[in-house]
């Protein structure tokens, strides 16, 4: 099962199934918080010890949607009953709207001697 999910994700990526950002980033932010995504990924999708970074993700939209519905990895699956494809599209738009992080070399606190 785990392999199948991974294969679906790879296939989705390889076939370029992702569409343009059809979602609404503002709604996506509300859904990201309201459905509990922030709990593991942070309010900004920055990631941390409980979940990977999602902000500005390189995953295609369809890949993300497929993963959320089917994962049997560390993340529990969220079925379409719990979060619809449309809601995930909104979340995807929100994640892509996050400001690109600055180059760490330009942040003095990340270059302390």
């Amino acid at each position, binding site marked *: 099962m785990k392999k199948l999910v991974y294969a679906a994700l790879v296939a989705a990526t390889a076939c370029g199934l992702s569409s343009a950002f059809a979602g609404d980033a503002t709604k996506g932010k509300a859904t990201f918080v309201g459905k509990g995504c922030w709990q593991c990924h942070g309010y900004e999708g920055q990631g941390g010890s409980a979940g990977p970074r999602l902000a500005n993700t390189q995953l295609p939209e369809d890949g993300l949607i497929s993963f959320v519905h089917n994962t049997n990895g560390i993340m*529990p699956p969220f079925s379409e009953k719990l979060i619809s494809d449309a809601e995930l599209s909104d979340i995807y738009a929100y994640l892509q709207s996050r400001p690109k992080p600055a180059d760490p070399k330009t942040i003095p*606190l990340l270059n302390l001697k």
Partner: protein
Amino acid sequence: MTEPRNGSGTDRRRFLKGAALAGAAPAIAATTSVAQAQVAAPRHLPSALPPNAHQIAAETHTPGPIENRIGGKPGSDFMVDVIKTLDIKYTPSNCASSFRALHESIINYGDNKAPEYLSCMHEESGVGMAHGYFKVTGKPLMTMVHGTVGLQHATMGIYNAWCDRVPVIIIGGNDLDAASRPPGVPTFHAAQDINTIVRDYTKWDDMPTSLQAFAQSMVRGYKIAMTPPYGPVAISLDAGLQQEPIGAHNSGLYIPKFTMPSPPAGEMGAVKDAAKMLLAAENPVIVADRAARTPNGIRLLVELAELLQAQVVDQGGRMNFPNTHYLARGAGVTAQADLILGLELSDFWAVVNSYTDNGEHGIGYNSAKAKAGVKLISISSVELLTKANYQDFQRFQSVDISMPADAEATLPALIEAVKSQMTSERRAQNDQRAEKAKKAFADIRGRETAAAAVAWDASPISTARLCMELYNQIKDEDWSLVASEGNVSNWPNRLWKMEKHHHWLGRSGGYGVGYGAPASVGAALANRDLGRFSVSIQSDGDLMFAPGVLWTAAKHKIPLLSVMHNNRAWHQEVMHVQRMASFRNRPSNYGNDAGPIGTMIQNPDIEYHKLAESMGWWAKGPIKDPAQLGPAIKEAMAVVKSGQPALLNVWTQPR
């Protein structure tokens, strides 16, 4: 048959010892009523009595020295004599009647020095303070707890100390003599086998019934606690034993000499075999959890790692290995190892296997994460002390060489064995291995800072920003991160320069929430005496288990900078309940909060800065704007440097 508790003639110790014989005596005469047998009726005395000899002497002679009413040196004074030989500097305790005699002796007879009594609001705080203190100094403290209920309060802290292999001397009160102890509360708080509640997670416990037995018990308990694997011990003291005079039957009391035990080292044959396997490995990885008991343990581990050019995973039970060293690595490197040397691991199974909480029917599944055929060597003193009930021993992991021995004590012999067996060909490989390792290390550092930069300006403040703003202010001090509870994605260990043993003290051991606040105060107390700057990253949920320890810090002028990771939740549980809802394919009920009902600490938000202020701390908050954080930390540091504790209530991202 009966004797009043404050009667002049009977020695209570002899009474206790004679209790068995008395029990065999004939029953009370049939003519005595039940009520009379239970309580002697008061005698009717005339209103005026002729003076006795003592009163006549008092009125007609020069007054002599005032003697105490008990007619000699109290037993608890002797107990203080014993305790002082062990050089126990503090006793953080919550006062209680069952050890009132020892309390009085410590502060008056013992001049409140070694140990100095520190006022605590909760027994768990006393144990937690002793826990943190030890991890800075390597010396145990003694904490006194009330009979039954006080010990019950202390239990979670004791379990944490047990799992974290930290010695704490718990002295409990008890009032054993059911015939003479006060009725009511002291009897509620007495027990026949009072230490049974902690026996499964202490190394040893005792209930001495004579002062000589106490002397032996105290020295024995200290020795057991301080023999690796370290651990807590509990000694219960009868109230009568504390309160009554030493008396003639205790003549010849002596205090046994304490000799620090040497730690158990690995057997030489196994050490040589381990060296042979390490040298034969292409990619040996060392995993250390509580390996470096002392600063010397770090030096030894660096020497072994460089000798082998082996990557080191520091699991962080203690500060084992400098994170600035090019051989320092995250846990992922074990996947490519052909040999793993585990040093004082609390869970070797989890080093080579993984558990994913997302299997069929809501049950997790196991999978291997190490290479097939990987060789495993374990050096662990904990294998010398395994108890049955609590499951801190984790899953069983088969290994190729098992040394039930203290890792730090074994490392010198292992280093020598590696040196003596190393061929010139093997030594020649080291330069190439080192070059490769240095390049990989630089790449890792770059990835860490890139991850930290994400959401750098976010509000609530990112945990990476929190940690780096803090580090920026303390980096030039002789700092000590005394606790980091609540999970800030491990940023201090990833980005701060951790090189000294006191830079990182590890975690609670048993994951009992409520460790961070008291352990921080205890460690800060130790660092105060050593002239170091203490900082803690204090989570909200942890603080609220026993926040009274803040008052203890203020009262005893313990300087500590406490920067809160206030994510307004018991965040681990937020995710657990969400996970359950997802498994069951139903929406999670958040009520009016941002997460599942029962897991959030909001509505209302707790104003921790006001809480701290009310207990004598300098405090500020809530800080939500990352731009305000650096200046606030600077302000708080000035307070801490003046000798006071300071707290910043910072609203943070979840992790």
